[in-house]
């Protein structure tokens, strides 16, 4: 079977196009149409008035991380190091310790995510066997005044709530 060959017409050979000026004026008419429309009514600009109007973030969107917890408020993470091992950017640092509340044997004593290293690939979420780490906070803009503020520790990761309901999150994939 021979490869499918599609011949494209090359434009620009006719006299009208070779004169160039006529085509330039056509292009200028198009751009002026846009200018004039926007000048008369600036509601028609294709612009989101950003800080005031926030974009809608779908549930499947990979935002800033959080650690989930059981219904009684204890951390789900068992410090299995799956996410840390999977992380291509080496931004997760876990320090495991013994768990005293009897739910499991291990728990993280320290769980640090360096957001300046993170590439938001979502591999940690996929690797987690216990659904303990999620990227469903809906936070897409992380800002700070110094580098230290970008290093998230366990309490912050546990404190941030998810932005979506359980059904929405399941439907959205992730």
């Amino acid at each position, binding site marked *: 079977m021979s490869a499918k060959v599609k011949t494209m017409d090359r434009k620009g050979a006719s006299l009208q196009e070779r004169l160039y000026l006529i085509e330039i004026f056509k292009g200028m008419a*198009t751009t002026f149409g846009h*200018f004039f429309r926007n000048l008369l009514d600036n509601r028609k*600009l294709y612009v989101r008035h950003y800080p005031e109007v926030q974009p809608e973030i779908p549930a499947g969107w990979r935002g800033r991380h959080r650690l989930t917890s059981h219904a009684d408020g204890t951390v789900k993470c068992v410090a299995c190091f799956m996410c840390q091992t999977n992380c291509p950017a080496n931004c997760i640092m876990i320090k495991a310790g013994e768990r005293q509340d009897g739910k499991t044997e291990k728990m993280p004593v320290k769980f640090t995510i360096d957001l300046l290293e993170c590439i938001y690939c979502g591999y940690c979420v996929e690797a987690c066997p216990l659904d303990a780490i999620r990227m469903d906070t809906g936070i897409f803009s992380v800002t700070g005044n110094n580098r230290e503020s970008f290093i998230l520790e366990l309490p912050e990761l546990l404190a941030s709530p998810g932005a979506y309901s359980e059904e929405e999150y399941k439907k959205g994939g992730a």
Partner: protein
Amino acid sequence: MSPLDIFMLVARVAFAAFIPLCFIAVCVWMERRGAGYFQDRSGPNRANIFGFRAAGLVQNLADAAKLFFKEDVISDHIKHKFYFVLAPVIVFFTALVSFAVVPFADTLVLGGKSYIMQGIPLDLGILWFLSFVGFSVYGIILAGWSSTNKFGVLGALRSAAQVISYEIPMGLAIVSLLVVYGTVNLNEIAQFQGKLLFGFIPMWGAVLQPLGMVIFIIAAFAETNRTPFDLAEGESELVAGFHVEYSAMKFAIFFMGEYVAMFASSAMIVTLFFGGYQVPFLSTATLISQAKPLAFLLMIILPVVMHFFAGWIRRSNVSHYPRENDPRVFEATVYIKCFWGLVIILEVLLLAILFSASGGPTAHIFVVLLQVCTFLFKITMMIFVYIWVRWTLPRFRYDQLQKLGWQMLLPLALLNIFITSAFVVALS
């Protein structure tokens, strides 16, 4: 010299020196907001002083403040620091001086004395302009060379080659114009364009020399290094071309020089092809004799225009999202009140003309101011065309640029000279 003579001298020199500088702000504002609107986005509209954004003009102040306080870096690898600093000065100075010969109103006659409305009263108007526009590229070449940077040198070389190619069609287009006008004095050229062809078409260069106009405008775009001929800068190929090593105020001088050059060449295009300071269909003599009806007409038109303008401000200057006690509505109200105040002042001045002696000095001054406004309006329109073209056309490739210059514009310009000369000889 009487005090009036000295005042007129200072006034015309100040006009020629400061109006281009004032227009830098207007040009940058038009460029950025215009670019936004051409591309369906809004452009800079957030910078404000106490909530007053002046349609984005405040952004210019912010930019200027930033450029003033930035560190002025001269890198150690630059051997010729004097030339490095001199280059932006040349670009800016030549652009500013090239505007000085453009007449911005007809000769003012006050008390039997006539005052020329030109920064430098020079008979060789066009030649002065040509020489200084040609000289401005020296600044660019010097900048590129003294930067000791391959991108800078490439940009400078491109600019040099481009100017050689486009000076010739530009000069030839002017030759055919001079055949028509029969003078190099810009004031006489503008006066010539005040006449009417067949009694109803203004005898503008654009009507008499359409081909010359196209060639001149294309060459003028190339001379000012604007898109589609901004190969010297070519940010996607040469980073920033000739000004790649420049920072802070030295860069700002280049930037402002570009806009002053744009203003000066717009002024030249307007003077040569669009009637200069002439109000269409109304020559200076008619304007002076009909000053009172004209003032009356303006008194009626101004409030009507202002009414629609106020409506436009009210519609445009609001937040386009739900917002309690929208501060932009208050802002719009203040703008509208300011503009109405301006209109009232103008109305009072026009009323004074209505009650003054007809054909007297007030009528003469009124006509000069009217012509200055017409001239600045035409220049603004031409600057808009520059911006419009910039945001429509992509950049030429280097070989395409040379081909256009030598194989299209040069023969066309020569042909134009032949046709024009034949016409002039046949008609005279």
